[in-house]
Each structure stands twice: as C-alpha cells, then as structure tokens.
C-alpha cells in the first residue's frame, strides 16, 4: 500500500531536481504565509467581498496587473536560468529535459500569462475612464474573463511541480507534442491552461469592442476618441478573429491526445503541417494583438509629455487598422523553410514587408508630435524614448527576416530570437511599463518615485542591448535556438557570456521596479489633483483614485483631447474675467517638479491668447487645477452592477475539469464540467444584478475628494 502511494507520488510530483524541490518549499511557504496573514487580520470576508466577487473594472484591472507582474517574475526567472545555462559551453547547470521545459514555459508565460493580462489590465484601468463611461459593457463577463485567466494560468503554472511541465516549445508542434513523443501530462497541462485562459481573452475582446462602440460619452465621436482606445479597438477586433483559431487548434490536438484522433499525427492520415499553419494563423495576429495597444499607449504619452496634439490622428487610426487586417495575411513567414514552394513564400514575404509601412508611418507621426512640442522626460516618456530606437531596429531585422530566401539562413537561429525579443521587449514590454507608470497615479493616487524609475529604465534599456545584440551575431554564427548547450569549438561562448550579463542587468532593473513600487507606496506624496501629468484626456478630469462610479456626471465632449481643451477654456475664462488672483490662489498641490501647463501659444490662433490683464508669464506659471468635473449631463442616481461570486466559482470549476482531464481522472473532470453548467444555470436565474447610488452619496464622495458637483 505504501509502495503504491510512493509510486503514485513519484509520478504525480516532479522529482529528482533540487531546483524543483526548492520551488516546492517556496510555494508551500508562500501559501502558508498568505493564509496566515488573511486569517490573522480577519480579511477573508474582505477578500471575498472586495476582490474575488468584484465586477468593478478598476479592481479587475488591478488584479490583472498584479497577476501579470508575478508572471513576469516567473518568466524572468526562467530566462535567467536559461541564460545561466548558456553562459559557458558544456554547462551542466540544467539537464536537457529541464532546459527544454524552461524555454517552453518561458515562452508561454511571457506571451500568454504576462503580456496578455498586463494588456487586459491596462484596458480595464483606462478605457472606460477615457471614454467617460462608468464601466465596461459587460461587467460580469469582465470578471469572468479575469478568473478564467487566473485559473487557467494556475493550471499551467502548477505543472512544474505536479505532473511535469510541457517541454515541446511554446507552440507545441506535433509530432513532438503528440502522445507518441510527449506521453507525459505536461502537454495536457499546456492545452488546458491555455484553452481555459483563452476563453477569457475572447470574452474580453468582445467586451471592449462593445464598450468602445456603444459607451462613449455624448459628443465623443469615434474620430474624437483617444488614440489608446482606437488601439484597443483594433486589438480587440483582432482578438475576436484570431482566438477562435487557437481554441479549435488546441481542441484538435486534445482530441488527438485524448481520443486517439489523427488530425496532426504521422499515421492515420494526419498532417503536422496543418497544425503549424493553424497555430501560426493565430500566433501571428497574437503578437499584433499585444503590440497595438502598446502603440496606443505611446501615442497618449508622447502627446501628453510633448504638451502637443498627437500628429496625424487620421493617419494613425488608418495605420492601426491596416496593421490589424494585414496581420492575418502573414502567418506563413514563420515557416518559410517548411517547403511550401516559391509561389507561397513569395506571397507571404510580400505581405510581411507590407506591414512595415503603416508601422513606420506611426513612428514618423510620434516623432512629429514631439517636433515643435515641449518635451519633459518623466518616466513614462523615458520608456517611450527607449522604445523608439529599439523597436525601429527590431522592425528592420523583421524586414530582413521577411525576405524569404534570406530567411533560410535566419530561421530558428539566434538572429530570429534577437528579433522577436527586440520587438516584444522594446515594443510590448516597454510600452506596458510606460503605461503602468503613466496611469499608476490615476489608479492608486500617487506617482511612482522618479529616481528609482530612472534607474529601472536604464538598467532595462542597457541590459536589453547587452543581452540581445550579441544574439544577432550568434545567429549569424550559426547558433540555433533551443539548444541547451554548445561546445567550445563553436566559438560562441564569449557572446553568450556577454548576453547573460545583459539578462541579469534586466533582472536587476526588475528588482528596482519592485523596490520602486514598495518605496512609493510608503513615501510618495498623495496626488489630490487627479491630474499629475497635465493630461489631455477624460480620465484626468476625475479624482485619483477614481471613485467607484468613475464620473459623478457623464461628461459631454465636443473635441478630441477633451480635458486639455476644457482646461484651456477655463484658463481663458478666468483670465478674461481678470481673475488672476483666483488662478494664483488655486489649491495647487501638484508635484513641484511639474512643468507649467503651457497655455496655447500657437501663433496661428490669436483668439486663444489670454485676455487683457494677464501677462504671458503669469499664465504659464499658473497651473490650472480645476476641482470641478467637465460640464455634462445633470446629476442623478448612478446605475451600477452588483458583485457576483459566479465568475470565481465557475472558473474554479473549469480549473477542476481541466485538472481532471490532464490526469484522465474523469471522477474529477466530470464534476468540474457539471459545476460549470451549474454556475451558468444559477447565473441565468440571477435577477438582482444592479443597484443605484443615490445622489447624496455621490455628492459626499466627490466632496471627500475635494470636488464640487
């Protein structure tokens, strides 16, 4: 009996690797610590009521961001483990099996469990506020999306201590990922973790399309919407077209593995090349899904920190949509060398090159936003300045890769790795970091410390180049990806060693970011203006953090950059009424470093000049900090959605079902599925879904934030 238990345990738990045992201990200690803290401070109810059942997009956004930063930590540790293994030839720090599992999980985690949730987090934190809306279109679905992601990620993440990690690469090509070559459960954890999380992604795509199309403030026509919202729209349109492909492909692989089907097997008429086509038909749009919102973030930041309108708004919208559409036409460039022939390769080479055009146009528009602006280099702008050269060079190597016949020398080499890391880190990661730093004060009510932020940025930026520039060279030297080691005779070790140093520099940069967050929570001044950067869009017109109903009254807008225009209007009004004293007496508790809010000095619009009695000097030194919201619809009780525990429970049931299918324990899987069905049934009969916030509560909340309604 004891023997049977031992046998089972040695299969169920991952054994034989000291690093894994260490992880087991760390996980156990963390769980004990979390449970103890919650119990000691009697916070279980609070956790359930305020976070696990919330449908508030702001809270959901925070949870997405926390989860993604934890995943950034795990994915980053994976990266540093790999770089340590590769630093010297014939290294035995990681066994081949372990190395293969680590590069697989590194890829899956960084793209699906770090970049996507961080992106969804920013969608949630920002889009409704930028649109002047009170929440997203489907708050319940929003919560469900998050918990599906959470439990899907949990299922994937537990695989390295229970059952075994997947180890067939982040895209799990068959036949390597079929039962014949991956008999273990790792591959099944892969399928179920991603599948469950993917349902959440698709739902978020739908949610934000409807929110953007239907819930903009009155007067906010589509072409007056903030550019970030356009980027979210283009990304979500891509999500709803691409994610069904992933769902189907993983389902077919599951059928192969679980029911012995032959979609992608070698025998029985299966064809692995079909999987490769399908998975990349999702995979290529996926990388554009994550980069488009980053572009939107940069548009917001460049305009704000150049104190100037975004250049070429119409062109930028067109470029976003071009990129989204074109992204579906390029997938075969991921396997030019699979032998499709010259006709097919030529077509996909062309479509891939085409995407460079709208992307390049966007770069020009950002540069010309800065041109004749007044640029301040706060942390969000630093990340943007790091992004531009990095992404542009990464795009160039992308064009080099798109030249199909040349790609036969680049494919699956370190040249390829360097390219995609350059665009993913330089574009996506830098963009989301910039967005986090930019909107952090709106979410939490205080800015992050600038000095630590600068240290973090430079470590990341320099570390990136030190890590990845040598990898282009290694690719040209013939080093292929996914090799767990190499010999002295290759001549690759110097560049590998340098690359490892760069990786650790980025790791230290991450530590600085953690320190920065902790330090700022404790020491940074609370922002009472709601508008610490001198922003241009509606989210800066409400207090920080935003009250739970967002806007006391729905704002009515009549131009792009509505908040900036409103501030100018108030300045002009005050100036022309000779209220210089009023302006100077504004309760301005902004950060002293902040540059003055320059009034409109555009010589071509003299009617914008401040009226008589106000000198230029006093206007440019008087930072307007209006404590009233934008004029809008009348104050009335606000309609809000109620919390619900169903998203959490239903996702947990999916987790249970997935776990059961992974181990082929139907006595767990079927109750899990039954639980999912039960949750849907319960939800169908849920009629108390909303409530109203009375007017005097709104007034009190606003007054507490120093606002007058």
């Amino acid at each position, binding site marked *: 009996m004891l023997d049977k238990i031992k046998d089972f345990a040695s299969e169920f738990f991952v054994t034989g690797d000291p690093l894994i045992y260490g992880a087991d201990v760390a996980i156990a200690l963390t769980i004990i610590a979390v449970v103890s803290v919650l119990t000691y401070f009697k916070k279980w109810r609070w956790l359930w009521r305020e976070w696990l059942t919330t449908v508030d997009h702001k809270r959901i956004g925070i949870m997405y961001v926390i989860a993604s930063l934890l995943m950034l930590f795990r994915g980053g540790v994976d990266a540093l483990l790999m770089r340590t293994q590769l630093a010297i030839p014939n290294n035995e720090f990681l066994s081949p*099996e372990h190395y293969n599992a680590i590069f697989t999980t590194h890829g899956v985690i960084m793209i699906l469990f770090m970049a996507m949730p961080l992106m969804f987090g920013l969608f949630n934190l920002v889009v409704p506020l930028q649109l002047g809306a009170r929440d997203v279109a489907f708050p319940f679905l929003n919560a469900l999306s998050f918990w599906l992601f959470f439990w899907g990620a949990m299922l994937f993440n537990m695989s390295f201590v229970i059952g075994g990690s997947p180890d067939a690469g982040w895209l799990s090509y068959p036949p390597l990922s079929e039962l014949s070559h991956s008999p273990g459960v790792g591959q099944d954890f892969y399928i179920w973790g991603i599948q469950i999380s993917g349902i959440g992604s698709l739902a978020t795509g739908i949610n934000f399309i409807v929110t953007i199309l239907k819930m903009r403030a009155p007067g906010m026509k589509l072409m007056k919407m903030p550019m970030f919202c356009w980027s979210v729209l283009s990304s979500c349109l891509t999500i709803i077209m691409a994610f069904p492909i992933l769902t189907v492909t993983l389902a077919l692989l599951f059928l192969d593995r679980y029911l012995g089907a032959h979609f992608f097997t070698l025998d029985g008429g299966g064809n692995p090349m079909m999987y490769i086509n399908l998975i990349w038909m999702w995979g290529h749009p996926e990388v554009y899904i994550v980069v488009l919102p980053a572009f939107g973030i940069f548009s917001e930041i460049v305009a704000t920190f*150049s104190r100037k309108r975004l250049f070429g*708004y119409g062109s930028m919208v067109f470029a976003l949509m071009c990129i989204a559409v074109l992204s579906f036409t390029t997938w075969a460039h991921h396997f030019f060398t699979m032998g499709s022939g010259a006709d097919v390769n030529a077509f996909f*080479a062309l479509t891939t090159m085409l995407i460079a055009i709208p992307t390049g146009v966007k770069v020009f528009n950002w540069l010309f936003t800065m041109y004749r602006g007044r640029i301040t280099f706060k942390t969000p702008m630093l990340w943007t300045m790091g992004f531009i050269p990095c992404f542009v060079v990464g795009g160039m190597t992308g064009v080099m890769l798109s030249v199909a016949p040349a790609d036969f020398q680049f494919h699956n080499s370190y040249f390829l790795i360097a390219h995609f890391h350059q665009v993913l880190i330089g574009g996506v990661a830098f963009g989301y970091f910039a967005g986090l730093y930019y909107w952090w004060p709106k979410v939490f009510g205080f800015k992050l410390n600038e000095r630590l932020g600068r240290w973090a940025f430079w470590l990341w930026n320099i570390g990136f180049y030190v890590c990845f520039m040598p990898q282009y060279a290694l690719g040209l030297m013939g080093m292929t990806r996914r090799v767990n080691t190499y010999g002295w005779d290759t001549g690759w070790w110097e560049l590998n060693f340098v690359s490892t140093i760069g990786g650790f520099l980025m790791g230290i940069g991450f530590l600085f970011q953690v320190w920065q967050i902790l330090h700022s929570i404790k020491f940074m001044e609370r922002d009472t203006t709601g508008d610490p950067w001198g922003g241009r869009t509606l989210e800066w017109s409400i207090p920080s953090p935003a009250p739970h109903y967002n806007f006391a009254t729905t704002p009515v807008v009549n131009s792009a950059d509505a908040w900036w225009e409103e501030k100018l209007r108030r300045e002009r009004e005050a100036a022309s009424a000779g209220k210089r004293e009023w302006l100077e007496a504004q309760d301005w508790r902004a950060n002293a470093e902040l540059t003055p809010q320059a009034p409109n000095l555009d010589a071509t619009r003299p009617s914008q000049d401040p009226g008589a009695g106000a000198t230029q000097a006093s206007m440019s030194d008087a930072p307007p900090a209006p404590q009233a919201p934008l004029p809008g619809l009348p104050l009335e009780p606000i309609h809000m959605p109620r919390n619900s525990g169903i998203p959490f429970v239903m996702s947990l049931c999916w987790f249970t079902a997935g776990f059961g299918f992974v181990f082929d324990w139907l006595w767990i899987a079927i109750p899990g599925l039954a639980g999912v069905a039960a949750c849907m049934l319960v939800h169908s009969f849920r009629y108390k879904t909303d409530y109203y916030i009375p007017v005097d509560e709104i007034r009190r909340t606003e007054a507490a934030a120093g606002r007058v309604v």
Partner: protein
Amino acid sequence: MNNRTRGFRRFAAALPLAAMTVLLSGCMDKFAVLDPKGVVGKQQLDLIVITTLLCAVIIVPVLIMTFVIAWRYRHRPDSKAEYRPNWAHSPKLEIIWWTIPIVIIAILATVTVRYTYKLEPSRPLAADAKPIVIQVTSLDWKWLFQYPEQNIATVNYVAFPENVPVQFELTSDAPMNSFWIPQLGGQIYTMSGMAMKLHLMADEPGTYMGSGANFSGKDFAKMRFDARAMTRAEFDQWVQNVRAAAPPLTQAGYDELAEPGTMPEQDYSSFPEGLFERTVTKYIKGGSGHGHHHGGSDADAAGSDTGAMTEMHHH
C-alpha cells in the same frame, strides 16, 4: 533628470556595442552566414546585404531624427525652440512618409520575389559537374546520410566533392527537424512521410558546421554534424575506404539507430536497399509505395529522381 545625463547614458549604452564590434572583428571567420563557401550561401548573403542597405535608408534618418528632435525640443525655461501645440496635421509630410517606405518596400519586394524563385531549395543548381545525390534522415538525435550512388552510409557527418552540386533528399524518422549547413546555404525542414529537396554546392574543400535547426526533443542540441567538402580524388578515395573497412548497416542496425539516443560519427559500407524510400512511405496505408514529394514549382525539369518516387505533388 536633465538631458546631459540622458545623452551621456545613451552613449554609455552604445559604447559596449561599439566595443563588441571592434573586439569581435577578429572572429569574422566564425560568422558562417557572412562567410559563405558555396554558391547558394553567397547569393543569400548578397540578398542580406541589399536588404540591410535598403532598410538603413529609412532607419538611419529615423534614429538621427529621434535624437535630434528629443534634444532640440526638450523643455527648458530659456528654450528658443518653436512651440506649436496645435500643429497636428500636414498632408505634405504624410505623403512623404507614406511614399518613401512604399517605394523602399516595392524595391525590396521585387528583389525578394526574384530571389525567392532563384533560390528555391528544390531547384537544381547550374553546374558543369553531374550532381551527387545524398539522402538525409533526421533521427532522434542523430543524422543518417545515405549515398545511393556509392551505396555507403554515414552517421553525424556527410562528405561530398567540391564544386559538385549536392542534391539532398531529406526525410525524418523522428519529430520534425531542420537540416542546416550555414556556410553553404539555407536550411530545409525534414519531416516524416515526405521527401524534401535541397541543393547546395561547396566552392572549396573544407569542414563546415552543420546542425539540426528545429527542436525535436531531449538531446536536440547534440544534432550537430560536419559537412566535409573534399577534392574529387579525396572523395573517391574516402568512398573506397569506407566500402572496404566499415561494417554494413543492416535493417536491425537501422532500427537501433532509430531508437532515441545519441552517437558519435560512424561509417557503413552498405545499407539496406530502398531504406530511404521505405522510411518516406512508412505511414502510407497499404504500402503501395508512392510517397508525397514536396518541392517548388520548378523542381523537376532537370532534377534527378530516386527510383521509387512514382507520384509527385506540386505546391
């Protein structure tokens, strides 16, 4: 933070890159892709250089503009730079920066399409000498080379004469892999159930690094092999030596090779008849002996063909 410090730190970031370029220039001969020894690799390098130059036409000005604009328009109280906060539209500029990339991409596209057909791997190479056929099978985790005209086989190294087009026919009896000799030219995937074609030729004798380039499991990193180009005389001598001294590869021996594992270089003085063809058609039900032949549209005009391929599918 003022811009001086930024500028200095930018420079500090660039310094290690410049240093690496200088320090590593002594290792140029290690850059296989940049130092090709075969006609295919040479054409691919030409293409890489053309692409880089075309891209640089856009990239270099963009990088310069980024730095200049950031520097010039940084906010200082005494700044004399013009400030036009509402200037956000210029049809002239839009036309310029849509047109220039379109033109560059159009040029690059034309070059690419031409070379895509020219360098299609299944297309035979123009040469005086008659091609030599070498059959390649990727296994877990080793490479098997069969020489049907010489009736010998090798594992984990391949030999062929210089200045003779080598017509590789490739398959796999293991998960998908990729066959790559960077100094001679680009790679091609090796897949079970089908035979790929790749043509390469070495300009001069030498030993060139080869590797597997598509992850295929545990000991994928060990799938390195040497590609040895020899003079005609040396090659003939080598064939004779192998025929004389090496053990034969039996079917049982092959089955053992196909088991997961690694091994050092090995010679075989003969191999079972039709082994490669049987490997390719392994998964066809009924064993009627025809297999899928994948290659480009102009694969067949002058190309030779091993006997058992009776049916061909064009893509």
